């Protein structure tokens, strides 16, 4: 049984038809990428899985339970976390407080352990634990957003464009961390504009175009696919 199973969801913003029936799954232990142009519906898909939006029809199952109508905060407690597009750190709260919020669903003792973990992975956050998140650099904010999402120790971590706006060196660092996280047992659903990087660390990928999945395959297959190369890999 898949860890995440999305079945034919249709999602609207008022009268705007954003997701036109997509189905896909994520198996335990995998890294799966969703790629596609701006406005294809990648973020909408993640928002819908997290319960911030509701599909008009269709079904979403996570770890064997139907979460289609579950409240967003319960979905997090069930083990599905999202690091949203544009970081969305709490800018007037400190680094440490942001991480505490990430562990909101967990006991204090567990939180301490997760925090050590996050600080170990992101030593730069540890140095700045008392600083207000709004004063961090873009790269540091991205690390904080990822760290914060890791704090709930999710079974499945969804990352929406974690490399957006980062310098190449930092992009590599972020992808390395995603790989490490995955090797230590976290399943990852990754949304990326940087298709090359994303597909090269992914087991499988899906290509979204205007609210529909148009191509799917393993990471390697997609990297070699002519259409994918022309549209998303620049040749």
């Amino acid at each position, binding site marked *: 049984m898949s860890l995440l199973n999305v079945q034919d969801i249709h999602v609207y913003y008022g009268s705007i038809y954003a997701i036109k029936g997509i189905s896909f799954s994520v198996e335990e232990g995998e890294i799966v990428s969703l790629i596609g142009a701006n406005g294809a519906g990648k973020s909408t898909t993640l928002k819908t899985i997290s319960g911030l939006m509701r599909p008009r029809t269709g079904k979403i199952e996570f770890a064997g339970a139907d979460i289609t109508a579950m409240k967003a905060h*319960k979905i997090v407690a069930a083990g599905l976390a999202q690091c949203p597009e544009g970081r969305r750190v709490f800018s*007037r709260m400190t680094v440490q407080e942001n991480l505490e919020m990430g562990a909101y669903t967990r006991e204090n003792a567990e939180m301490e352990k997760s925090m050590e973990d996050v600080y170990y992975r992101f030593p730069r956050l540890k140095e700045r634990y008392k600083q207000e998140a709004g004063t961090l650099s873009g790269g540091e904010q991205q690390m904080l957003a990822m760290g914060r*999402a890791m704090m709930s120790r999710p079974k499945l971590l969804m990352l929406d464009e974690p490399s957006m706006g980062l310098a190449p060196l930092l992009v590599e660092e972020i992808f390395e961390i995603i790989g490490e996280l995955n090797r230590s047992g976290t399943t990852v659903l990754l949304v990326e504009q940087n298709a090359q990087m994303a597909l090269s660390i992914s087991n499988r990928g899906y290509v979204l175009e205007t609210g529909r999945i148009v191509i799917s395959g393993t990471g390697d297959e997609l990297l070699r696919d002519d259409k994918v190369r022309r549209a998303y890999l620049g040749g």
Partner: protein
Amino acid sequence: MIFFQQLLNGLQLGSIYALVALGYTMVYGIILLLNFAHGDIIMVGAYVSWVVMSRLQLGPITAVFASVLMCTLLGVVIEKVAYAPLRSAPRLSLLITAIGVSYFLENGAQLIFGADGKNMNAIFSIPNLTIGSVTLSSTALVTLAVTIVAMIGLLMLVHKTKMGKAMRAVSEDMGAAQLMGISVNATISFTFAIGSLLAGIGSVLYSNIYQMATPTMGSMLGLKAFVAAVLGGIGSIPGAMIGGFAVGFIETFVSAAKIGQQSLSVWRDAVVFAILIIVLVVKPTGIMGHKVREKV
């Protein structure tokens, strides 16, 4: 000497404004609503004190607890019944609903208790404090002390507890807070509870000073507290505290001031509003305000 007494009067009045302003600012911070029913909660609290003390002949302690509890519950119920169903409605619908709730409470009180005021005894009667030639009002000292304790409590709550931090997270970014596993509804309820509890404390202190309840007593008090919140920077907790004391001082000193034989007392409210306008022209976000927050 007169100066010290006026200073204390300013602090007393400012305490009440600050306590009420905190509720305005916290609710605005979390759901962007100017809760115009907030002042009327004070009025309900005052009637509860009157009923408990004058009607039921129970002691002041009972009156304090009954008032504060009633205000807290009322705030939470108003939110659940009137505002929660409008969570994704335009903010204007919410504002109009708040005005409706305010009329409902005022007219409800008038229906039950009549339009004329109800007098009651002071809740705490402690002799005034005399130091040398200065007599300090014990009511003012109690008001100030209770307010300071309440403010310290609030700051600890907001900065040190999990629920308080969740409140700050929700008021900064509701969507991101949900992605942390924070229940937005529970957090909003909690915010109303705390804001209304502070209003309940304000209500007890106010009744203790003025010893009277009328159906419309909350509206001018609410308006002044609203001015205090905006002056301090709506959405900012320290701002509401500073704004409350500022309005209290301005009122007290303008009331006491004289030009020749002419008392300036009638100019009191005009000066408060004029200062509000000047501050907003110079710094539109208020004294402690943040830049306007983007809502996602």
